[in-house]
């Protein structure tokens, strides 16, 4: 099952990409996806703890189930305005 990942600010700098396709392992929800990402990019640990998640452009909790084609974005502490 594939999802689209969007990275911004500190996430983007650590991952080195703005957007990737991601094939989920056994994970079914956001929490599992975050764990998979940290396994690949260990430097995400700190920022991942502080970040919120949007699925399809809406804030969601980490138990939210993922579906194929979802757009998942990681939202470190915002600084707009």
């Amino acid at each position: 099952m594939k999802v689209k990942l969007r990275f911004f600010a500190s996430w983007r700098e650590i991952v080195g990409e703005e957007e990737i396709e991601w094939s989920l392992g056994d994970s079914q929800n956001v929490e599992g996806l975050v764990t998979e990402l940290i396994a690949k990019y260990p430097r995400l640990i700190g920022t991942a703890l502080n970040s919120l998640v949007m699925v399809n452009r809406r804030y969601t909790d980490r138990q939210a189930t993922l579906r194929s084609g979802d757009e998942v974005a990681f939202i470190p502490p915002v600084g707009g305005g």
Partner: protein
Amino acid sequence: MIIRITDQPIDVQELIAEVSNESNGGIVAFLGVVRRWNDSPNGSPREVYWLEYEAYREAAEEIMREIAQQIEEKWAITSIAIAHRIGHLEIGEAAVGIAVGAPHRVEAFDACEYAIDTLKATAPIWKKEAWERDHQTGQSWVENKAPL
């Protein structure tokens, strides 16, 4: 209604014109501007050279539309314009501009302040600050303080 993420300078005149009509007696506009001195994480001020803003554009615009909708529900105000700039900003340039028009001024003030407070707390927009303090320089992602 203007809801816009843009890499162009913010034109407050345009925002005000957008919320002006025959029914609105009070117009309140807010500009958030890059200033030279900003608080560092330990509280002491450091000098800012420039800021670089980035946004999750589609989601930020959706959040801004939701803010406009909340304002309509709370104050029955439909005259609202919100523009946020992204990219490289120098000292003195506006990062965000908001204008609200209402029949009476009290609601315009309240709604405009609500809009910027909510935008700063929730819109997926980030800024990187290039700074210097005590002969040290750096670049840091700066997060908004939580509301009191």
